[in-house]
Protein backbone atom coordinates (compact mmCIF):
# COMPACT_ATOMS: atom_id res chain seq x y z
CA UNK A 1 0.00 0.00 0.00
CA UNK A 2 1.06 3.60 0.07
CA UNK A 3 2.80 3.69 3.40
CA UNK A 4 5.72 1.51 2.63
CA UNK A 5 9.27 1.15 3.55
CA UNK A 6 10.57 -1.74 1.62
CA UNK A 7 13.60 -1.69 3.85
CA UNK A 8 12.36 -4.02 6.59
CA UNK A 9 11.90 -6.82 4.10
CA UNK A 10 15.58 -6.35 3.38
CA UNK A 11 16.23 -6.90 7.04
CA UNK A 12 15.21 -10.49 6.59
CA UNK A 13 17.09 -10.80 3.32
CA UNK A 14 19.83 -13.43 3.31
CA UNK A 15 22.49 -10.76 2.96
CA UNK A 16 21.48 -9.08 6.19
CA UNK A 17 21.02 -12.27 8.10
CA UNK A 18 24.54 -13.42 7.42
CA UNK A 19 26.25 -10.06 7.75
CA UNK A 20 27.08 -10.58 11.41
CA UNK A 21 28.70 -13.89 10.59
CA UNK A 22 30.95 -12.45 7.90
CA UNK A 23 34.68 -12.19 8.54
CA UNK A 24 35.86 -8.83 9.83
CA UNK A 25 37.34 -7.76 6.50
CA UNK A 26 34.09 -8.41 4.68
CA UNK A 27 32.13 -6.58 7.35
CA UNK A 28 34.33 -3.52 6.95
CA UNK A 29 33.92 -3.76 3.18
CA UNK A 30 30.17 -3.53 3.77
CA UNK A 31 30.57 -0.60 6.10
CA UNK A 32 32.96 1.29 3.81
CA UNK A 33 30.33 3.01 1.59
CA UNK A 34 28.51 4.17 4.71
CA UNK A 35 31.49 5.68 6.47
CA UNK A 36 31.96 8.97 4.56
CA UNK A 37 28.34 9.98 5.21
CA UNK A 38 28.47 8.82 8.82
CA UNK A 39 31.74 10.58 9.65
CA UNK A 40 30.65 13.76 7.88
CA UNK A 41 27.34 13.82 9.77
CA UNK A 42 28.98 13.15 13.13
CA UNK A 43 31.49 15.96 12.61
CA UNK A 44 29.08 18.57 11.31
CA UNK A 45 26.08 17.84 13.55
CA UNK A 46 27.47 16.38 16.77
CA UNK A 47 30.58 18.50 17.35
CA UNK A 48 28.57 21.77 17.45
CA UNK A 49 26.26 20.28 20.07
CA UNK A 50 29.18 19.30 22.27
CA UNK A 51 30.49 22.85 21.81
CA UNK A 52 27.04 24.18 22.81
CA UNK A 53 27.15 22.10 25.99
CA UNK A 54 30.57 23.50 26.87
CA UNK A 55 29.64 27.11 26.09
CA UNK A 56 26.46 26.75 28.16
CA UNK A 57 28.61 26.33 31.26
CA UNK A 58 30.50 29.58 30.66
CA UNK A 59 29.85 33.18 31.61
CA UNK A 60 30.65 34.66 28.21
CA UNK A 61 29.50 37.98 26.83
CA UNK A 62 31.35 39.34 23.82
CA UNK A 63 30.74 42.90 24.99
CA UNK A 64 32.71 42.15 28.19
CA UNK A 65 35.85 40.44 26.90
CA UNK A 66 38.21 38.86 29.42
CA UNK A 67 35.36 37.86 31.69
CA UNK A 68 34.89 34.42 30.19
CA UNK A 69 34.85 31.85 32.97
CA UNK A 70 33.20 28.63 34.10
CA UNK A 71 29.91 29.12 35.93
CA UNK A 72 28.51 25.59 35.99
CA UNK A 73 24.73 25.46 35.66
CA UNK A 74 23.97 29.09 36.44
CA UNK A 75 23.08 29.87 32.81
CA UNK A 76 20.38 27.22 33.07
CA UNK A 77 19.08 28.99 36.16
CA UNK A 78 18.87 32.18 34.11
CA UNK A 79 17.12 30.35 31.28
CA UNK A 80 14.45 28.87 33.53
CA UNK A 81 13.80 32.14 35.41
CA UNK A 82 14.07 34.56 32.48
CA UNK A 83 10.67 36.10 31.71
CA UNK A 84 11.45 36.63 28.03
CA UNK A 85 12.44 33.01 27.62
CA UNK A 86 9.33 31.79 29.36
CA UNK A 87 7.26 33.97 27.05
CA UNK A 88 9.20 32.48 24.14
CA UNK A 89 8.39 28.94 25.27
CA UNK A 90 4.68 29.79 25.47
CA UNK A 91 4.79 31.52 22.08
CA UNK A 92 6.59 28.56 20.51
CA UNK A 93 3.95 26.16 21.78
CA UNK A 94 1.08 28.45 20.70
CA UNK A 95 2.59 29.04 17.28
CA UNK A 96 3.48 25.41 16.59
CA UNK A 97 0.22 23.97 17.90
CA UNK A 98 -2.01 26.42 16.03
CA UNK A 99 -0.13 26.17 12.75
CA UNK A 100 0.02 22.37 12.88
CA UNK A 101 -3.62 21.88 13.86
CA UNK A 102 -5.14 24.47 11.53
CA UNK A 103 -3.08 23.40 8.52
CA UNK A 104 -3.84 19.75 9.34
CA UNK A 105 -7.60 20.37 9.31
CA UNK A 106 -7.44 22.53 6.17
CA UNK A 107 -5.08 20.01 4.54
CA UNK A 108 -7.51 17.19 5.32
CA UNK A 109 -10.43 19.11 3.82
CA UNK A 110 -8.42 19.90 0.70
CA UNK A 111 -7.27 16.28 0.42
CA UNK A 112 -10.89 15.10 0.63
CA UNK A 113 -11.91 17.60 -2.06
CA UNK A 114 -9.05 16.47 -4.31
CA UNK A 115 -9.62 12.76 -3.71
CA UNK A 116 -12.44 12.69 -6.25
CA UNK A 117 -12.10 13.13 -9.96
CA UNK A 118 -13.15 16.49 -11.30
CA UNK A 119 -12.25 18.58 -14.34
CA UNK A 120 -8.78 20.06 -13.93
CA UNK A 121 -7.88 18.11 -10.79
CA UNK A 122 -4.24 17.88 -11.86
CA UNK A 123 -4.01 21.63 -12.34
CA UNK A 124 -5.77 22.29 -9.01
CA UNK A 125 -3.24 20.09 -7.21
CA UNK A 126 -0.36 21.87 -8.89
CA UNK A 127 -1.73 25.30 -7.89
CA UNK A 128 -2.29 24.12 -4.32
CA UNK A 129 1.33 23.05 -3.92
CA UNK A 130 2.56 26.52 -4.92
CA UNK A 131 2.32 28.14 -1.44
CA UNK A 132 4.64 25.46 -0.05
CA UNK A 133 7.19 26.08 -2.80
CA UNK A 134 7.37 29.86 -2.52
CA UNK A 135 10.58 30.74 -0.67
CA UNK A 136 9.62 31.11 3.04
CA UNK A 137 11.26 34.54 3.32
CA UNK A 138 9.52 35.67 0.14
CA UNK A 139 6.21 34.34 1.45
CA UNK A 140 6.67 36.16 4.75
CA UNK A 141 7.49 39.43 2.97
CA UNK A 142 4.54 38.90 0.64
CA UNK A 143 2.15 38.48 3.57
CA UNK A 144 3.64 41.36 5.50
CA UNK A 145 3.66 43.95 2.74
CA UNK A 146 1.34 42.83 -0.04
CA UNK A 147 -1.42 41.37 2.12
CA UNK A 148 -1.29 42.88 5.62
CA UNK A 149 -0.21 46.45 4.75
CA UNK A 150 -2.88 48.72 6.33
CA UNK A 151 -3.03 51.24 3.46
CA UNK A 152 -2.66 49.23 0.27
CA UNK A 153 -2.45 45.58 1.31
CA UNK A 154 -4.68 43.11 -0.47
CA UNK A 155 -6.71 42.23 2.64
CA UNK A 156 -7.78 45.80 3.37
CA UNK A 157 -8.02 46.41 -0.36
CA UNK A 158 -10.59 43.64 -0.73
CA UNK A 159 -12.48 44.82 2.36
CA UNK A 160 -12.50 48.35 0.96
CA UNK A 161 -13.73 47.07 -2.39
CA UNK A 162 -16.55 45.08 -0.76
CA UNK A 163 -17.53 48.06 1.41
CA UNK A 164 -17.65 50.35 -1.64
CA UNK A 165 -19.71 47.73 -3.45
CA UNK A 166 -22.32 48.23 -0.75
CA UNK A 167 -22.18 52.00 -1.01
CA UNK A 168 -19.83 52.88 1.85
CA UNK A 169 -17.13 55.49 1.19
CA UNK A 170 -14.16 53.46 2.44
CA UNK A 171 -13.75 50.11 4.09
CA UNK A 172 -12.13 49.52 7.49
CA UNK A 173 -8.40 50.09 7.68
CA UNK A 174 -7.10 47.29 9.89
CA UNK A 175 -3.45 47.17 10.89
CA UNK A 176 -3.38 43.38 10.89
CA UNK A 177 0.15 42.87 12.22
CA UNK A 178 0.02 45.21 15.21
CA UNK A 179 -3.58 44.47 16.19
CA UNK A 180 -3.31 40.67 15.84
CA UNK A 181 0.42 39.82 15.64
CA UNK A 182 0.24 36.13 16.52
CA UNK A 183 -2.71 35.29 14.23
CA UNK A 184 -0.92 37.22 11.47
CA UNK A 185 2.17 35.01 11.75
CA UNK A 186 0.04 31.88 12.16
CA UNK A 187 -2.03 32.66 9.06
CA UNK A 188 1.06 33.14 6.89
CA UNK A 189 2.54 29.86 8.13
CA UNK A 190 -0.75 27.97 7.80
CA UNK A 191 -0.90 29.12 4.19
CA UNK A 192 2.57 27.66 3.58
CA UNK A 193 2.08 24.38 5.47
CA UNK A 194 -1.44 23.39 4.42
CA UNK A 195 -0.17 22.00 1.07
CA UNK A 196 2.35 19.85 2.95
CA UNK A 197 -0.40 18.29 5.07
CA UNK A 198 -2.65 18.00 2.03
CA UNK A 199 -0.05 16.05 0.03
CA UNK A 200 0.56 13.45 2.74
CA UNK A 201 -3.15 13.04 3.58
CA UNK A 202 -4.12 12.82 -0.10
CA UNK A 203 -1.62 10.01 -0.55
CA UNK A 204 -3.26 8.38 2.48
CA UNK A 205 -6.77 8.75 1.08
CA UNK A 206 -5.73 7.29 -2.25
CA UNK A 207 -4.13 4.30 -0.58
CA UNK A 208 -7.48 3.22 0.87
CA UNK A 209 -8.32 -0.30 -0.21
CA UNK A 210 -11.16 0.29 -2.63
CA UNK A 211 -12.81 -3.07 -1.93
CA UNK A 212 -13.46 -1.98 1.67
CA UNK A 213 -15.05 1.28 0.51
CA UNK A 214 -17.07 -0.70 -2.01
CA UNK A 215 -18.25 -3.07 0.72
CA UNK A 216 -19.27 -0.15 2.92
CA UNK A 217 -21.27 1.32 0.06
CA UNK A 218 -22.96 -1.99 -0.66
CA UNK A 219 -23.84 -2.30 3.02
CA UNK A 220 -25.56 1.07 2.73
CA UNK A 221 -23.15 3.18 4.78
CA UNK A 222 -23.45 6.89 4.06
CA UNK A 223 -20.54 9.12 3.13
CA UNK A 224 -20.18 10.48 6.68
CA UNK A 225 -20.34 7.05 8.30
CA UNK A 226 -17.83 5.66 5.81
CA UNK A 227 -15.51 8.54 6.58
CA UNK A 228 -15.88 8.21 10.36
CA UNK A 229 -15.49 4.44 10.61
CA UNK A 230 -13.31 3.49 7.64
CA UNK A 231 -11.41 6.47 6.26
CA UNK A 232 -10.45 8.11 9.55
CA UNK A 233 -8.98 4.98 11.19
CA UNK A 234 -7.10 4.26 7.96
CA UNK A 235 -5.78 7.83 7.90
CA UNK A 236 -4.58 7.71 11.50
CA UNK A 237 -0.95 6.96 10.78
CA UNK A 238 -0.88 9.53 7.99
CA UNK A 239 -2.31 12.13 10.36
CA UNK A 240 0.31 11.24 12.96
CA UNK A 241 3.09 11.46 10.40
CA UNK A 242 1.85 14.88 9.18
CA UNK A 243 1.58 16.22 12.73
CA UNK A 244 5.03 15.03 13.74
CA UNK A 245 6.92 16.07 10.61
CA UNK A 246 5.02 19.38 10.61
CA UNK A 247 5.83 20.02 14.29
CA UNK A 248 9.51 19.32 13.78
CA UNK A 249 9.75 21.89 11.01
CA UNK A 250 7.38 24.49 12.48
CA UNK A 251 8.97 24.44 15.96
CA UNK A 252 12.08 25.74 14.21
CA UNK A 253 10.27 28.64 12.52
CA UNK A 254 12.67 31.54 12.16
CA UNK A 255 12.09 33.16 8.77
CA UNK A 256 8.48 34.18 9.35
CA UNK A 257 9.03 35.68 12.81
CA UNK A 258 12.22 37.43 11.70
CA UNK A 259 10.49 38.91 8.68
CA UNK A 260 6.91 39.63 9.66
CA UNK A 261 7.08 40.84 13.27
CA UNK A 262 10.70 40.71 14.51
CA UNK A 263 9.17 38.97 17.49
CA UNK A 264 7.08 41.97 18.44
CA UNK A 265 5.19 43.91 19.46
CA UNK A 266 7.13 43.44 22.71
CA UNK A 267 7.59 39.70 22.96
CA UNK A 268 4.15 38.87 21.54
CA UNK A 269 5.49 36.68 18.73
CA UNK A 270 9.04 35.92 19.90
CA UNK A 271 9.47 32.17 19.64
CA UNK A 272 12.45 30.21 20.96
CA UNK A 273 14.57 30.21 17.80
CA UNK A 274 14.14 33.97 17.47
CA UNK A 275 14.78 34.58 21.19
CA UNK A 276 17.96 32.49 21.04
CA UNK A 277 18.99 34.44 17.97
CA UNK A 278 18.44 37.72 19.85
CA UNK A 279 20.37 36.49 22.89
CA UNK A 280 23.23 35.52 20.58
CA UNK A 281 23.48 38.39 18.15
CA UNK A 282 21.79 41.30 19.96
CA UNK A 283 22.67 40.73 23.62
CA UNK A 284 25.83 38.73 22.86
CA UNK A 285 25.17 36.51 25.90
CA UNK A 286 26.79 33.43 24.43
CA UNK A 287 26.58 31.29 27.57
CA UNK A 288 22.89 32.01 28.06
CA UNK A 289 22.11 31.43 24.38
CA UNK A 290 23.91 28.09 24.49
CA UNK A 291 22.01 27.03 27.63
CA UNK A 292 18.71 27.96 25.96
CA UNK A 293 19.84 25.95 22.94
CA UNK A 294 20.49 22.90 25.11
CA UNK A 295 17.04 23.23 26.70
CA UNK A 296 15.47 23.39 23.23
CA UNK A 297 17.41 20.31 22.17
CA UNK A 298 16.25 18.37 25.23
CA UNK A 299 12.66 19.45 24.56
CA UNK A 300 12.98 18.39 20.94
CA UNK A 301 14.46 15.03 21.91
CA UNK A 302 11.41 14.35 24.05
CA UNK A 303 9.07 15.21 21.16
CA UNK A 304 11.29 13.41 18.65
CA UNK A 305 11.18 10.20 20.68
CA UNK A 306 7.46 10.08 20.00
CA UNK A 307 8.10 10.98 16.38
CA UNK A 308 10.58 8.15 15.96
CA UNK A 309 8.12 5.76 17.56
CA UNK A 310 5.52 6.71 14.93
CA UNK A 311 8.01 6.36 12.07
CA UNK A 312 9.15 2.97 13.30
CA UNK A 313 5.54 1.86 13.70
CA UNK A 314 5.18 2.62 9.99
CA UNK A 315 8.18 0.35 9.48
CA UNK A 316 6.63 -2.49 11.45
CA UNK A 317 3.27 -2.05 9.76
CA UNK A 318 4.91 -2.71 6.42
CA UNK A 319 7.00 -5.59 7.79
CA UNK A 320 3.81 -7.36 8.84
CA UNK A 321 2.39 -7.21 5.33
Amino acid at each position, binding site marked *: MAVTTTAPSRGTAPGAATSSRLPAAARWARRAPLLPALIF*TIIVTQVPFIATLIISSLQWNVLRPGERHFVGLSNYGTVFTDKRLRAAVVNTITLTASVVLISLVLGLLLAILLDRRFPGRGL*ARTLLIAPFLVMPVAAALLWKHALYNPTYGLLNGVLNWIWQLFGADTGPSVDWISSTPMPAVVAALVWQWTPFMMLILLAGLQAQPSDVLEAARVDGAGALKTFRFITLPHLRQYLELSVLLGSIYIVQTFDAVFTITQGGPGTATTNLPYEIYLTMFRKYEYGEAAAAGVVVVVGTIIVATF*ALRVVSSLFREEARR
Partner: protein
Amino acid sequence: MTATPTTRSDALAAERSGSPTESSAAPPSAPRRRLRRQRDPDVAAHGGPIWTLVAWIVTLFFFAPVAWMVLTSFHSEADAATNPPSLFAPLTGANYDLLFSRGIRPFLINSATAAIISTLLVLALAVPAAYALSIKPVEKWTDVMFFFLSTKFLPAIAALLPIYLIVKDIGMLDNIWSLVILYTAMNLPIALWMMQSFLAEVPKEILEAAEVDGAGLLRVLWNVVVPVAMPGLAATALICFIFSWNEFMFAVNLTATRSATAPVFLVGFITNEGLFLARLCAAATLVSLPVLIAGFAAQDKLVRGLSLGAVK
Protein backbone atom coordinates in the same frame (compact mmCIF):
# COMPACT_ATOMS: atom_id res chain seq x y z
CA MET B 1 19.43 15.81 -12.81
CA THR B 2 19.47 14.32 -16.27
CA ALA B 3 16.37 12.35 -15.43
CA THR B 4 14.33 15.46 -14.79
CA PRO B 5 12.65 15.26 -18.20
CA THR B 6 11.44 11.78 -17.31
CA THR B 7 9.86 13.00 -14.12
CA ARG B 8 8.37 15.97 -15.85
CA SER B 9 6.98 13.95 -18.73
CA ASP B 10 5.56 11.49 -16.21
CA ALA B 11 3.82 14.34 -14.46
CA LEU B 12 2.58 15.70 -17.76
CA ALA B 13 1.36 12.31 -18.90
CA ALA B 14 -0.42 11.86 -15.61
CA GLU B 15 -1.96 15.29 -15.91
CA ARG B 16 -3.21 14.53 -19.40
CA SER B 17 -4.87 11.40 -18.14
CA GLY B 18 -6.47 13.58 -15.48
CA SER B 19 -5.07 11.73 -12.49
CA PRO B 20 -1.69 13.07 -11.44
CA THR B 21 -2.41 12.02 -7.92
CA GLU B 22 -2.55 8.41 -8.94
CA SER B 23 1.07 8.56 -10.04
CA SER B 24 2.05 9.72 -6.58
CA ALA B 25 0.53 6.64 -5.05
CA ALA B 26 2.36 3.34 -5.19
CA PRO B 27 2.46 1.91 -8.69
CA PRO B 28 -0.78 -0.01 -8.54
CA SER B 29 -0.68 -3.64 -9.41
CA ALA B 30 -3.03 -4.76 -12.14
CA PRO B 31 -5.85 -6.01 -9.89
CA ARG B 32 -5.73 -2.84 -7.82
CA ARG B 33 -6.00 -0.66 -10.84
CA ARG B 34 -9.11 -2.54 -11.85
CA LEU B 35 -10.63 -1.93 -8.44
CA ARG B 36 -9.70 1.74 -8.60
CA ARG B 37 -11.49 2.02 -11.90
CA GLN B 38 -14.63 0.57 -10.38
CA ARG B 39 -14.44 3.00 -7.52
CA ASP B 40 -13.77 6.23 -9.27
CA PRO B 41 -16.98 6.87 -11.24
CA ASP B 42 -18.82 5.91 -8.10
CA VAL B 43 -17.03 8.52 -6.00
CA ALA B 44 -17.58 11.11 -8.70
CA ALA B 45 -21.28 10.28 -8.67
CA HIS B 46 -21.41 11.07 -4.95
CA GLY B 47 -19.89 14.50 -5.55
CA GLY B 48 -21.20 16.25 -8.58
CA PRO B 49 -20.61 19.73 -9.92
CA ILE B 50 -21.14 21.51 -6.61
CA TRP B 51 -18.11 19.84 -5.06
CA THR B 52 -16.07 20.55 -8.18
CA LEU B 53 -16.99 24.21 -7.78
CA VAL B 54 -16.09 24.14 -4.08
CA ALA B 55 -12.76 22.47 -4.83
CA TRP B 56 -11.90 25.09 -7.42
CA ILE B 57 -12.95 28.03 -5.25
CA VAL B 58 -10.81 26.78 -2.36
CA THR B 59 -7.90 26.11 -4.70
CA LEU B 60 -8.03 29.60 -6.19
CA PHE B 61 -8.38 31.09 -2.70
CA PHE B 62 -5.14 29.36 -1.67
CA PHE B 63 -3.40 30.27 -4.89
CA ALA B 64 -4.56 33.91 -4.79
CA PRO B 65 -1.54 35.30 -2.85
CA VAL B 66 0.85 33.70 -5.37
CA ALA B 67 -1.19 35.01 -8.29
CA TRP B 68 -1.31 38.44 -6.65
CA MET B 69 2.47 38.37 -6.16
CA VAL B 70 3.12 37.53 -9.81
CA LEU B 71 0.53 40.03 -11.08
CA THR B 72 1.81 42.89 -8.91
CA SER B 73 5.38 42.16 -10.02
CA PHE B 74 4.31 43.23 -13.51
CA HIS B 75 2.55 46.41 -12.36
CA SER B 76 4.06 49.87 -11.91
CA GLU B 77 4.65 51.06 -8.32
CA ALA B 78 1.79 53.52 -8.65
CA ASP B 79 -0.68 50.82 -9.71
CA ALA B 80 0.57 48.46 -7.02
CA ALA B 81 -0.19 50.94 -4.25
CA THR B 82 -3.84 51.68 -4.99
CA ASN B 83 -6.73 50.87 -2.74
CA PRO B 84 -8.94 49.13 -3.79
CA PRO B 85 -6.38 47.07 -5.74
CA SER B 86 -6.17 47.72 -9.48
CA LEU B 87 -6.45 44.30 -11.02
CA PHE B 88 -6.28 45.33 -14.66
CA ALA B 89 -3.50 47.91 -14.62
CA PRO B 90 -1.12 47.84 -17.61
CA LEU B 91 1.68 45.31 -17.38
CA THR B 92 5.38 46.14 -17.43
CA GLY B 93 8.65 44.27 -17.04
CA ALA B 94 10.40 47.29 -15.57
CA ASN B 95 10.57 45.86 -12.03
CA TYR B 96 12.58 42.90 -13.22
CA ASP B 97 14.96 45.14 -15.18
CA LEU B 98 15.41 47.18 -12.04
CA LEU B 99 16.25 44.09 -9.95
CA PHE B 100 19.04 43.16 -12.30
CA SER B 101 20.36 46.70 -12.44
CA ARG B 102 20.38 46.74 -8.62
CA GLY B 103 22.59 43.66 -8.70
CA ILE B 104 20.42 40.66 -7.79
CA ARG B 105 22.54 38.48 -10.07
CA PRO B 106 25.46 37.70 -7.68
CA PHE B 107 22.95 36.69 -4.99
CA LEU B 108 21.21 34.32 -7.39
CA ILE B 109 24.58 32.89 -8.40
CA ASN B 110 25.53 32.39 -4.74
CA SER B 111 22.22 30.64 -4.08
CA ALA B 112 22.67 28.43 -7.13
CA THR B 113 26.25 27.60 -6.14
CA ALA B 114 25.33 26.68 -2.58
CA ALA B 115 22.26 24.70 -3.64
CA ILE B 116 23.78 22.82 -6.57
CA ILE B 117 27.16 21.96 -5.04
CA SER B 118 25.62 20.89 -1.73
CA THR B 119 23.10 18.76 -3.62
CA LEU B 120 25.88 17.03 -5.57
CA LEU B 121 27.82 16.46 -2.33
CA VAL B 122 24.73 15.08 -0.64
CA LEU B 123 24.18 12.61 -3.46
CA ALA B 124 27.84 11.59 -3.50
CA LEU B 125 27.61 10.80 0.23
CA ALA B 126 24.05 9.47 0.35
CA VAL B 127 24.04 7.04 -2.57
CA PRO B 128 26.91 4.81 -1.34
CA ALA B 129 25.58 5.08 2.22
CA ALA B 130 22.07 4.12 1.12
CA TYR B 131 23.63 1.18 -0.73
CA ALA B 132 25.19 0.03 2.56
CA LEU B 133 21.78 0.40 4.24
CA SER B 134 19.61 -1.37 1.70
CA ILE B 135 21.28 -3.52 -0.93
CA LYS B 136 24.14 -4.83 1.17
CA PRO B 137 23.03 -3.78 4.62
CA VAL B 138 25.51 -3.44 7.45
CA GLU B 139 24.57 -5.00 10.79
CA LYS B 140 22.13 -2.87 12.81
CA TRP B 141 21.34 -0.78 9.74
CA THR B 142 18.02 0.43 11.18
CA ASP B 143 19.89 2.00 14.10
CA VAL B 144 22.11 3.81 11.62
CA MET B 145 19.03 5.05 9.74
CA PHE B 146 17.50 6.40 12.93
CA PHE B 147 20.75 8.05 13.96
CA PHE B 148 20.73 10.02 10.71
CA LEU B 149 17.05 10.87 11.16
CA SER B 150 17.62 12.05 14.73
CA THR B 151 20.12 14.67 13.53
CA LYS B 152 17.28 16.15 11.49
CA PHE B 153 15.20 16.52 14.64
CA LEU B 154 17.77 18.66 16.41
CA PRO B 155 16.84 22.33 16.04
CA ALA B 156 19.36 24.13 13.86
CA ILE B 157 19.18 27.24 16.04
CA ALA B 158 20.90 25.37 18.90
CA ALA B 159 23.87 24.68 16.62
CA LEU B 160 24.04 28.19 15.22
CA LEU B 161 26.26 29.66 17.94
CA PRO B 162 29.04 27.03 17.89
CA ILE B 163 28.89 26.87 14.10
CA TYR B 164 29.18 30.66 13.94
CA LEU B 165 32.16 30.61 16.33
CA ILE B 166 33.91 27.74 14.51
CA VAL B 167 33.32 29.29 11.09
CA LYS B 168 34.61 32.62 12.40
CA ASP B 169 37.68 30.96 13.94
CA ILE B 170 38.74 29.28 10.72
CA GLY B 171 38.10 32.46 8.73
CA MET B 172 35.19 31.06 6.73
CA LEU B 173 32.59 33.73 7.51
CA ASP B 174 31.02 35.17 4.38
CA ASN B 175 32.31 32.18 2.42
CA ILE B 176 29.91 30.22 0.24
CA TRP B 177 31.66 26.95 1.15
CA SER B 178 30.48 27.26 4.75
CA LEU B 179 26.91 27.21 3.47
CA VAL B 180 27.71 24.33 1.11
CA ILE B 181 28.96 22.20 4.03
CA LEU B 182 26.02 23.12 6.28
CA TYR B 183 23.41 22.48 3.60
CA THR B 184 25.05 19.15 2.85
CA ALA B 185 24.70 18.14 6.51
CA MET B 186 21.16 19.52 6.64
CA ASN B 187 19.96 17.50 3.64
CA LEU B 188 21.98 14.32 4.05
CA PRO B 189 19.47 12.55 6.35
CA ILE B 190 16.58 13.36 3.99
CA ALA B 191 18.54 12.16 0.96
CA LEU B 192 19.71 9.05 2.78
CA TRP B 193 16.18 8.05 3.78
CA MET B 194 14.85 8.75 0.30
CA MET B 195 17.64 6.93 -1.51
CA GLN B 196 17.39 4.01 0.90
CA SER B 197 13.73 3.59 0.02
CA PHE B 198 14.45 3.88 -3.71
CA LEU B 199 17.46 1.52 -3.67
CA ALA B 200 15.48 -1.08 -1.77
CA GLU B 201 13.38 -1.34 -4.93
CA VAL B 202 16.31 -2.31 -7.16
CA PRO B 203 15.66 -5.91 -8.21
CA LYS B 204 18.04 -8.30 -6.45
CA GLU B 205 18.45 -10.51 -9.51
CA ILE B 206 20.19 -7.77 -11.51
CA LEU B 207 22.58 -7.10 -8.63
CA GLU B 208 23.40 -10.76 -8.22
CA ALA B 209 24.02 -11.10 -11.94
CA ALA B 210 26.41 -8.14 -11.87
CA GLU B 211 28.22 -9.63 -8.91
CA VAL B 212 28.59 -12.99 -10.61
CA ASP B 213 30.23 -11.10 -13.48
CA GLY B 214 32.75 -9.81 -10.92
CA ALA B 215 31.84 -6.12 -11.02
CA GLY B 216 33.26 -4.01 -8.18
CA LEU B 217 31.24 -1.72 -5.92
CA LEU B 218 31.71 1.43 -7.99
CA ARG B 219 30.87 -0.42 -11.20
CA VAL B 220 27.77 -1.96 -9.63
CA LEU B 221 26.70 1.44 -8.35
CA TRP B 222 27.34 3.21 -11.61
CA ASN B 223 26.18 0.59 -14.12
CA VAL B 224 23.40 -1.19 -12.26
CA VAL B 225 22.06 0.79 -9.34
CA VAL B 226 22.15 4.34 -10.69
CA PRO B 227 20.23 3.61 -13.92
CA VAL B 228 17.45 1.80 -12.03
CA ALA B 229 17.29 4.38 -9.25
CA MET B 230 17.60 7.37 -11.58
CA PRO B 231 14.05 8.75 -11.08
CA GLY B 232 14.55 8.45 -7.33
CA LEU B 233 17.92 10.12 -7.60
CA ALA B 234 16.41 13.02 -9.53
CA ALA B 235 13.61 13.41 -6.99
CA THR B 236 16.11 13.37 -4.12
CA ALA B 237 18.25 15.97 -5.87
CA LEU B 238 15.24 18.23 -6.37
CA ILE B 239 14.17 17.99 -2.72
CA CYS B 240 17.71 18.82 -1.56
CA PHE B 241 17.89 21.69 -4.02
CA ILE B 242 14.59 23.11 -2.74
CA PHE B 243 15.63 23.02 0.92
CA SER B 244 19.07 24.54 0.24
CA TRP B 245 17.74 27.26 -2.03
CA ASN B 246 15.15 28.32 0.55
CA GLU B 247 17.43 28.18 3.62
CA PHE B 248 17.60 31.50 5.43
CA MET B 249 18.83 31.24 9.03
CA PHE B 250 22.40 30.12 8.37
CA ALA B 251 22.64 32.30 5.27
CA VAL B 252 21.65 35.49 7.07
CA ASN B 253 23.95 34.88 10.04
CA LEU B 254 27.04 33.51 8.31
CA THR B 255 27.27 35.66 5.18
CA ALA B 256 27.71 39.35 4.51
CA THR B 257 28.46 41.09 1.23
CA ARG B 258 30.38 38.52 -0.82
CA SER B 259 28.45 35.29 -0.45
CA ALA B 260 24.95 36.32 0.63
CA THR B 261 22.21 34.26 -1.00
CA ALA B 262 18.88 35.21 -2.55
CA PRO B 263 16.76 35.21 0.66
CA VAL B 264 19.33 37.50 2.31
CA PHE B 265 19.07 39.81 -0.71
CA LEU B 266 15.28 39.87 -0.32
CA VAL B 267 15.42 40.95 3.32
CA GLY B 268 18.18 43.49 2.73
CA PHE B 269 16.42 44.80 -0.34
CA ILE B 270 13.41 45.83 1.73
CA THR B 271 15.36 47.62 4.45
CA ASN B 272 17.60 49.42 1.97
CA GLU B 273 14.97 50.46 -0.51
CA GLY B 274 12.07 51.24 1.75
CA LEU B 275 8.83 49.72 0.64
CA PHE B 276 8.20 49.40 -3.06
CA LEU B 277 5.51 46.79 -3.40
CA ALA B 278 5.83 46.00 -7.11
CA ARG B 279 9.60 45.67 -6.84
CA LEU B 280 9.25 43.45 -3.79
CA CYS B 281 6.81 41.20 -5.63
CA ALA B 282 9.15 40.98 -8.60
CA ALA B 283 12.05 40.01 -6.32
CA ALA B 284 9.91 37.47 -4.44
CA THR B 285 8.68 35.96 -7.71
CA LEU B 286 12.17 35.78 -9.18
CA VAL B 287 13.79 34.07 -6.19
CA SER B 288 10.89 31.62 -5.83
CA LEU B 289 10.85 30.69 -9.50
CA PRO B 290 13.57 27.98 -9.49
CA VAL B 291 11.88 26.12 -6.64
CA LEU B 292 8.41 26.50 -8.12
CA ILE B 293 9.68 24.98 -11.38
CA ALA B 294 11.58 22.21 -9.58
CA GLY B 295 8.62 21.48 -7.33
CA PHE B 296 6.07 21.33 -10.12
CA ALA B 297 8.39 19.09 -12.12
CA ALA B 298 8.83 16.70 -9.21
CA GLN B 299 5.34 16.96 -7.72
CA ASP B 300 4.63 13.25 -8.05
CA LYS B 301 7.73 12.55 -5.95
CA LEU B 302 7.25 15.44 -3.52
CA VAL B 303 5.22 13.44 -1.00
CA ARG B 304 7.80 10.71 -0.82
CA GLY B 305 10.59 13.19 -0.30
CA LEU B 306 8.77 15.25 2.31
CA SER B 307 7.81 12.16 4.28
CA LEU B 308 11.40 10.86 4.06
CA GLY B 309 10.33 7.99 1.85
CA ALA B 310 7.64 6.74 4.24
CA VAL B 311 4.67 7.68 2.05
CA LYS B 312 4.78 6.77 -1.60
